């Protein structure tokens, strides 16, 4: 009976109840979508970090370090070949890398020069796909250079223009080489574009004075993160003295963003629910104060406090039970739709790419998160209704009955 009174009571002021239901639905919808959108951004970020930058696993000589000691070389051997073709490995490559200066007739600046195997690198980091101008290692010539658009502009060098790279070789001599810009790229990460340049592995090997099997860095791209552990183990066995690192270790900031995502989500949802709480408290308080006389009569005829309290709580519960599923279904649909077609951030992408985010975002939210949001909103609704319900208990029947 109390259930049915509560249910009918919420329809006494249809507009007000619909407003509350609507705001609960809208709040949850917006909250869930914002979270899903952020998750989509993070996924892009992770994808870029793995597929364009670090791969899943990298191997360096233990002494290579952040200073990139040119002597700290490893060699491709039989165990590497086995590791590179192990199950779960999508592609593998090795690189030489030095830091030094790049100069054009007008300008000089710091750079990081990779000696890559173009075919393998294309599979590994899709380096060929960011080509803007010229070609991606078009010939067998030994002086090909692939540089970022920003750097090219800074150096005022055009396609087929010559630049000089300077760095120390393995004998600690300064080596300089004139290379020709055969390709200009623009990646999604503007800050890297300004520093990173690529030549062929063989070219850099010759300049450094090492052979074609030597490398500073090996990278393994895997089918999925489930194959991470066995492949890390295999590489560690292949190069016992070397440093084997996963992308999470190579990009700790990305890992941190992911692990703080839940916290971020709860903060966003918490703020929305806090706002909803005020709306619910206000509405239900109005509903209670409007019915002072009626509640007084109910108390007079023998409806006890527990029942009055339940009645008001149930009214709120009904509102949120109507609003929450509506909001969650709306959110689910919006997220499914935008998650399928993607949201093109083209108009903001100049800014976004600075932070390493891709331009098309696919919002996504795990099913368990929907449940969390639903539970949180339910708990909020109950807490929010407790105060108006408590106020209803404070009404003295005489005072209520005297109010005509």
């Amino acid at each position, binding site marked *: 009976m109390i259930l049915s*009174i509560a249910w009918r009571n919420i329809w*006494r002021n249809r507009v007000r109840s619909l407003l509350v239901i609507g705001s609960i639905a809208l709040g949850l919808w917006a909250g869930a979508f914002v979270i899903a959108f952020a998750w989509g951004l993070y996924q892009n970020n992770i994808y870029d970090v793995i597929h364009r930058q670090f791969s899943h696993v990298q191997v360096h000589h233990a002494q290579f370090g952040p200073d990139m000691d040119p002597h700290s070389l490893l060699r491709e051997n039989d165990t590497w070949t086995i590791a590179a073709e192990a199950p779960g490995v999508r592609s593998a490559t090795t690189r030489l890398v030095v830091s030094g200066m790049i100069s054009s007739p007008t300008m000089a600046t710091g750079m990081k020069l990779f000696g890559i195997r173009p075919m393998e690198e294309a599979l590994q980091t899709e380096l060929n796909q960011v080509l803007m101008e010229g070609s991606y290692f078009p010939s067998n010539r030994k002086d090909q250079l692939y540089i970022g658009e920003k750097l090219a502009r800074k150096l005022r060098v055009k396609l087929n223009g010559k630049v000089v790279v300077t760095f120390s070789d393995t004998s600690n001599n300064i080596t300089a080489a004139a290379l020709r810009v055969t390709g200009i790229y623009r990646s999604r990460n503007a800050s890297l574009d300004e520093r990173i340049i690529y030549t062929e592995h063989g070219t850099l090997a010759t300049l450094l004075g090492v052979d074609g099997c030597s490398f500073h860095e090996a990278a393994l791209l895997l089918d999925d993160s489930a194959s991470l552990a066995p492949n890390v183990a295999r590489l560690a066995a292949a190069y016992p003295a070397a440093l084997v690192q996963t992308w999470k270790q190579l990009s700790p900031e990305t890992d941190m963003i992911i692990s703080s995502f839940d916290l971020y989500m709860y903060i966003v949802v918490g703020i929305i629910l806090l706002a909803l709480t005020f709306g619910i408290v206000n509405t239900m308080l109005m509903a209670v104060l409007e019915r002072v006389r009626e509640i007084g*009569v109910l108390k*007079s*005829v*023998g*409806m006890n*406090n527990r*029942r009055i309290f339940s009645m008001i709580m149930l009214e709120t519960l009904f509102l949120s039970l109507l609003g929450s599923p509506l909001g969650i279904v709306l959110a689910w649909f919006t997220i499914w739709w935008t998650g399928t077609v993607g949201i093109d951030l083209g108009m903001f992408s100049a800014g976004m790419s600075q932070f390493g985010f891709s331009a098309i975002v696919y919002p996504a939210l795990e099913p368990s998160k929907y449940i969390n949001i639903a539970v949180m909103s339910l708990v909020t609704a109950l807490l929010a209704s407790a105060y108006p319900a408590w106020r209803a208990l404070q009404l003295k029947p005489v005072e209520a009955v005297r109010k005509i």
Partner: protein
Amino acid sequence: MNQANAKPATVIDAHELSKVYNGHQIPVRAVDNVHLHIEEGEFTAIVGPSGSGKSTLLHLIGGLDAPTAGSVILAGTDLTQLSENELIDFRLHNIGFVFQAYNLVPVLTARENVGFVMQLQGVPREEREARVRTLLEEVGLADKAESKPGKLSGGQQQRVAVARALASKPRIVLADEPTANLDSVSAANLLDIMARLNRDENITFLFSTHDQRVIEKARRVITLVDGRVVSDEIRQ
């Protein structure tokens, strides 16, 4: 048989009952040292001008308000000794209320309003429905069972309220100016129904009024002035 000779049970025994409101400046003695003894089967009116303390007295007797001094013993229970929740429960089983207006739950039909109290008492469904039907028939509203209060006239609403007050099989029905908002025909009609229930089913009624035509129907008239009982006459 010898029931007529047996001494009727006492329903209300109020002693030295006072209620003082500490108003703005001077305390108001709304009920002032009232002694009241009501027996089963009475049909008693409390009369007096507006502000004489009729509502306050009924509220004290019904345990809606606590007296400043004195005691109310209703069907053997001292109301001043009960906690708030015990009072609510006591009212549920022993007292039927009819107020001047807005007695009914607006979202419930006449049938549901009457059944509601029995539901709070935990009366089984069949018994409840049968009793609701009987009560609505007694107040002449069997055909309005499915109407919400908003669709009933003031008189009809008060009749539903009387049926609701009787639903719990209370020891006494307290009615505070039940006819104040009614036209004279409806008022007479309501009083006739109450008088018939009193006569045929021995229901005890204590009601307040300042309507002369209503006063004429009472079998005992207690007059209040400034919270004091100034006369108490029994008519035959």
